């Protein structure tokens, strides 16, 4: 009986991994051929012409995601700290409930909302509105993960800090938060990876751009290219070359996300000490 339990659990885990590896391997197969220096450094060419690249989309995605993180991470961690360390009662419950609901709102609805609130006011599509939309989507995941990781810090640690005469705010930031840092970073990376691939909100906010958008006065205020948008546009087009580039774009997107997550792990893991040295 034990053997049956173990083997069916093992089988289930293998089945879960199959779609992941299937997608990744298929992406590699279809996309790796079209990745070259041109692809990574050149702008898209007019339809029908072969060649060109997605450089502007790669940079645009980076700009939008940086903005999203600037919004999602501080507000998310701040809310998480409040819920775990200071909040209680009805208000905190309300905050949690709101976060959970926000988490479940379809991304396209968030996009439309930001369209009305930001794009129409600005008068243009922009990386700023794209960053705001994605940042808002990051907040609930980061907040809930932060709250849960902080709750896992044993109270003895907080007591030790208080007993040393460290003010509450200081001990929350420098000791409690630091103890939970590893888990919080995981939560941030999860939220980041999720929004990195969101396309629908960007349809109404960043909108996409076939050209560079790097001048200081336009970088936040004009339509910006983004990888998911570009992949979408190319994939539904009738041109073979664009199809190949769409595959390549998808592969690049995955690789960039994996690289970002790994890099953060290495940098942040560097400063952590574990229980067993």
């Amino acid at each position, binding site marked *: 009986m034990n053997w049956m339990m173990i083997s069916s659990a093992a089988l289930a885990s293998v089945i879960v991994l199959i779609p992941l590896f299937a997608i990744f391997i298929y992406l590699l197969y279809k996309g790796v051929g079209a990745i070259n220096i041109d692809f990574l450094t050149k702008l898209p060419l007019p339809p029908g012409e072969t060649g060109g690249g997605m450089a502007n989309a790669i940079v645009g995605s980076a700009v939008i995601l940086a903005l999203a993180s600037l919004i999602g991470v501080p507000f998310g961690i701040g809310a998480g700290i409040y819920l775990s360390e200071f909040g209680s009662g009805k208000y905190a419950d309300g905050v949690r409930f709101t976060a959970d609901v926000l988490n479940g709102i379809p991304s396209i609805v968030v996009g439309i909302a930001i369209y009305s609130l930001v794009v129409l006011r600005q008068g243009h599509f922009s990386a700023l509105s794209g960053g705001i939309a994605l940042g808002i989507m990051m907040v609930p995941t980061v907040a809930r993960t932060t709250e849960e990781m902080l709750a896992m810090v*044993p109270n*003895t*640690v907080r*007591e*030790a*800090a*208080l*007993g*040393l*005469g*460290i*003010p509450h705010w*200081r*001990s929350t930031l*420098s*000791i409690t938060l*630091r*103890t939970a*840092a*590893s888990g919080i970073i995981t939560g941030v990376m999860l939220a980041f990876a999720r929004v990195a691939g969101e396309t629908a909100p960007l349809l109404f906010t960043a909108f996409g751009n076939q050209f560079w958008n790097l001048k200081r006065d336009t970088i936040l205020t004009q339509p910006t290219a983004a990888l998911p948008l570009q992949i979408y546009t190319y994939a539904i087009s009738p041109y073979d070359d664009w199809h190949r580039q769409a595959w390549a774009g998808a592969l690049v997107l995955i690789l960039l996300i994996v690289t970002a997550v790994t890099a953060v792990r290495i940098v942040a893991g560097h400063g*952590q*000490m*574990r*229980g*067993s*040295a």
Partner: protein
Amino acid sequence: MGLGIEVKNLNAWFSKAQVLQDIEMSIQPNKVTAIIGPSGCGKSTYVRCLNRMHETIPDARVTGDVKVGDLDVYGPDTVAVDVRRRIGMVFQKANPFPTMSIYDNVAAGLKLNGFRNRRELDEIVERSLVMSALWHEVKDVLKKKSGASLSGGQQQRLCIARALAVEPDILLMDEPASALDPISTGKIEELVFQLKEQYTVVIVTHNMQQAARVADFTGFFLMGKLIEFDRTEKIFTTPSDKRTEDYITGRFG
């Protein structure tokens, strides 16, 4: 240098339940005072009232007077954080900061209160670890090993070093050796004996023999009241109160 503590009319509650009644005690400077009594008698609560840790529990309340030298612990203008810097605490279960190195653990109280001078920090860390008899065991791995990777007895000595680093006047110890093996316990007791030269120590213990070994004065608590407080030899040889005698001789525990 050690200061004494004057406690008058101390009462404490958890919500509606009163756990300490009218405690009055004069703790002598540079001496070890033991607090003994059966489980639930209020010993830990009493000690936590001395450095204002009791009030950190939701719905907990304290009234009364606690004076340390010129510091009125519960005075209207007194900030709890300042009190805790002058009255340090070591807890029953060693609680080093898990993600910090040994060095950072000892320096935590100083660093997080704004102290920055690297060389002075190094000196204070070394001095504190020497005082808590841990220096020789960890001096080569100060920054490489984490606080939580030490053995139980070493962790507790690390917590003592951490408490001593902020140079308190008084050190409160809540059953510091109860989770340790006899050899580590012996080391801690030796430590307490040495510490009283510089500090005033109040130690809670459920182990009467420990109180007899280590303390100059002993206070016996029972159900939230201070039954008897006197020199240790007197308490353990000719106690004045029958209840003290019953507890000492093991008639109840």
